[in-house]
């Protein structure tokens, strides 16, 4: 039996309110109540006023589930990072998401297991409301981007590259100050803005082309990848992979830098 806290439903910024909604937390039915999709947080309360709330940064994914053969009722599926503790649900989830390591966290969620998730299903009696519930959550998620924080990238596994080192070795200056997305556009110089527009234009026009390897910038590497594959730098000569079938690519943001990994046959 999950202990629910006696909290107050939000009164402001409620984008969607859905009564007669059953909450199921990690398979455990919490009963029927009201879901509040508010700008500040997502919360649910039953008729006696007990409930829980979730911070949007802790919600990794949400979706509408319609396949009744997989789950008997249509519902809103929500995946929360970390495990919800009886005592401290929202806080725990947020700590797990932030991968915070100053001191030990309450309730001992010490495994810091990035794989630990909590699955919540909100089953409204009115299935037609699912689209609105989903959209309201999307909108509210967009209101809570992660703060601009270098440390937030630390939970990438391993040190694939020491990008600062690579930068230094290639004679680049210190990495410039980072701007948030919001500030960034206004901080762009006129030239920077022109470049951005050009980039957007270039990218929009790009079509699938034969993969050319000319001009590949080879990195220093004894870099090991998280899957343990080492790169044979000798093979990375220009033109070596012209005829290669590229298996797939991976694009990731790390330390505010763009890493593109391409696996070739």
């Amino acid at each position, binding site marked *: 039996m999950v202990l629910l806290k006696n909290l107050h439903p939000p009164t402001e910024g409620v984008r969607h309110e859905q009564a007669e909604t059953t909450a199921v937390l990690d398979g455990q039915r919490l009963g029927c109540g009201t879901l509040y999709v508010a700008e500040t947080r997502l919360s649910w309360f039953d008729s006696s006023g007990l409930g829980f709330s979730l911070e949007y*940064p802790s*919600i*990794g994914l949400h979706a*509408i589930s*319609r396949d009744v053969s997989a*789950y008997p009722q249509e519902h809103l*599926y929500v995946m929360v990072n970390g495990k919800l503790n009886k005592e401290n649900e929202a806080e725990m989830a947020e700590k797990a998401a932030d991968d915070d390591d100053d001191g030990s966290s309450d309730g001992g969620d010490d495994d810091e297991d*990035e794989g*630990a998730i909590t699955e919540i299903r909100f089953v409204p009696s009115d299935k037609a409301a699912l689209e609105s519930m989903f959209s309201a959550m*999307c909108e509210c*998620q*967009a209101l809570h*981007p*992660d703060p601009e924080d270098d440390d937030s990238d630390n939970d*990438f596994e391993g040190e694939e*590259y020491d*990008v600062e080192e690579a930068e230094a070795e290639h004679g*680049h*200056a210190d990495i*410039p*100050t*980072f*701007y948030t997305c919001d500030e*960034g*556009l206004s901080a762009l110089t006129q*030239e*920077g803005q022109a*470049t951005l527009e050009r*980039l957007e234009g270039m*990218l929009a026009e*790009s079509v*699938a*082309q034969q*993969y*050319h390897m000319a001009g*590949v*910038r080879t990195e220093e590497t004894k870099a090991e990848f998280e899957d343990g*594959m080492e*790169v*044979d730098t000798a*093979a990375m000569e220009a033109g070596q*992979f012209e005829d290669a*079938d*590229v*298996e*797939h*690519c*991976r*694009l*990731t*943001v790390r330390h*505010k*830098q*763009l*890493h*593109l*990994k*391409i*696996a*070739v046959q």
Partner: protein
Amino acid sequence: ECFKKKKKQPTATLTVQLTLACVSAPQLFYSFFKSLVGKDVVVELKNDLSICGTLHSVDQYLNIKLTDISVTDPEKYPHMLSVKNCFIRGSVVRYVQLPADEVDTQLLQDAARKEAMQQKQ
């Protein structure tokens, strides 16, 4: 890890590190992902869940909406089986796997280099 799941083993992994610091990196990503809308991708989350789907939309925070999704490891994540569309918070994404023929890597390299040079000025 994702390579192990593939049927064919790639013979080499080529990493193109596009060093692109500061303000335009998120913008470049946003532009890049916008150009991929409609393509099939695999999003790998930091909690190891991988989701295949069609990229429906992306926002400036790289929150991703996928349609027609399937989970690459349904035994581990059975609860996702009934889901067709989803919204993924950008901050929980570890990787986005792209079909290589959808990526103009040369263009991306050029774009990133030019942008990096621009930013150095």
